[in-house]
Structure formats: C-alpha cells, structure tokens
C-alpha cells in the first residue's frame, strides 16, 4: 500500500527517511506511538492464557541493556586494556 500506511518492518531501507517524514512526530503522536507499541507488546506476550518467562525476561533484558548504556561512561574507566 501507500507509504504512510505501512508498518516499520514493511518499509524498505531506502524509503526510511521518506517514511519517517510521513509519521506524526509531534509529542502527542510520539506518545500515541509508544502507547500503541506497549499495548501490542502486552497483547502478544503478557495478556495470554498460558504465558511463560519470555514476557518479562525480555523486559528485564531490555532494562539491563538500557541501564548499561546509561552507565557506559562510568564503566569505561574499568577497562582491562588501553588499546583495542
């Protein structure tokens, strides 16, 4: 279909800037996008009859990675070698 209605995974790499231009990038739009993404994640992995550990383990892994990246400047001081 037309570019504005396609989802992110269906957009080709070359069309990415164009696709980004069609999205609603105002604060409300971004907030709406975040809410939709969160509700889609919940409906897929958490609000099921027989969920497993995967639902929250992915969230915890994401949190670990995010907090590592926030503290990277501090962790960089504990490297083992100076030159890589």
């Amino acid at each position: 279909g037309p570019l504005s209605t396609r989802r992110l995974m269906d957009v080709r790499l070359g069309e990415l800037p164009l696709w980004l231009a069609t999205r609603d990038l105002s604060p409300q739009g971004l907030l709406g996008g975040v809410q939709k993404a969160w509700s889609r994640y919940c409906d897929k992995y958490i609000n099921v009859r027989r969920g497993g550990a995967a639902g929250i383990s992915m969230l915890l892994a994401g949190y670990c990675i995010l907090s590592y990246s926030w503290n990277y400047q501090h962790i960089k001081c504990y490297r083992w070698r100076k030159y890589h």
Partner: protein
Amino acid sequence: LHAARPLHTSQQRLAPLPPLPEKGGEVRHGLIPEEFFQFLYPKTGVTGPYVLGTGLLLYFLSKEIYVINHETVAAACILSVIIYGVKKYGADVAAFADKLNEEKVAKASEVKNEAIKALETAIEEEKKEQWRVEGRSYLFDAKRNNIAMLLEANYRERLLTVYNEVKKRLDYQVALQNLKRQKELDHMVQWVEKNVVQSITPQQQKESIAKCILDLKALSKSAQVA
C-alpha cells in the same frame, strides 16, 4: 430516540469479548522472538542468527564495549540461579496459575449457566401460562352454567313461595265460606228444633203419649204370642 441512525453496525464491540489467545508469541531461549530467526532465515539459513550473535559477542568483548568486571560475575551467578529455578519449578507454577484461572472461569461460567437456566425455566413457565390462557373459554362456560343454574334455582324458589302464598289465601277464603255455611246450618237446625218443640202443645203431647202406650201394648201382645 429516532431509529434513523444505525446502531451496532461495526463488527467488533465490547461484548462478548474475544477470548485471550492461548499462547504468547514464540520466543527462543527466553530472550529473542522467533520473528528475528524467521527474518534472517531466507538469507542465512538456520545458523545465521547464532553466527550473528557469536560475532557480536566477540566484537563487544574484544573492543571492550562490554567490560568484564565484578558485575559480570554477579550477573552470571544470578542468571544461573534464575535459570535453574525456572527450569525446575516452572511447570508447577504454571499448573498452579492455570488452576487459579480455571476456578475463576468456572465461577463466572457457573453464574452464566445459572442465569441461563433460570431464564429457560421462566420461558417454560411463560409458555405454560400461555397454554392455560387457551382454556379460558371453558372456564367461562362453566362459570356461566353455574350462574344460570343459580338463577334458575332462585326463580323456582320464588315461584314456589308465590304458589304457597296464593294457596294459603284461597284456603282461607274456602274455610271462611265453609264456616259460614256450617254456622247457618247449625243455626237453622236449632231454630227449626226450637220451633218444633214449641209447637208441640200439651194436648198433642197427651195424645201422642196415649198412642204410644196403645202401640206398646199391641207390640207386647204380638211379642207374647211370638
């Protein structure tokens, strides 16, 4: 409220809710969704994502983008404990949670079933009442017959009363006439007797007595002879 605008035209509305999906999205090793492996499969086959993962890991370690320090050891210990716990007790916890869910659903569906049953019995009763209504005409016929009989009986009673009353009055008149005639008769007889007795003069009395004596003598003579 005009029924001009259409109601309930869209398909999916709030009730009844669509049921929850049975299982969540597939996730491999608890961390990476299956869609990633399917995404890389056409280009790199089965081992592609694993090679990518190993390569990335070695890159992060060699460039020390991921630094090995005390936290790595702590993370390794914690992760091993968690994984051991999940592998050993995962199934039991899942069964327990499933049981809780089952109970909730059973209670709700019980309420629903009870409501349905109550409504069905109500429907049955209603149908029975409707059937009973058909017998209305018979009921009214019987009632009408009863009333007619009552009226008839009452009418006859009154007729009998009238008859008795009239008979009593007529009897009275008849008795009155009889009494009057009897009285007249008695009076006349008395009067005749009185006059007759009065008319018997002494002369006639003497003659009749003498005659009687003569007759008696004749009779006694005939009796003596016989």
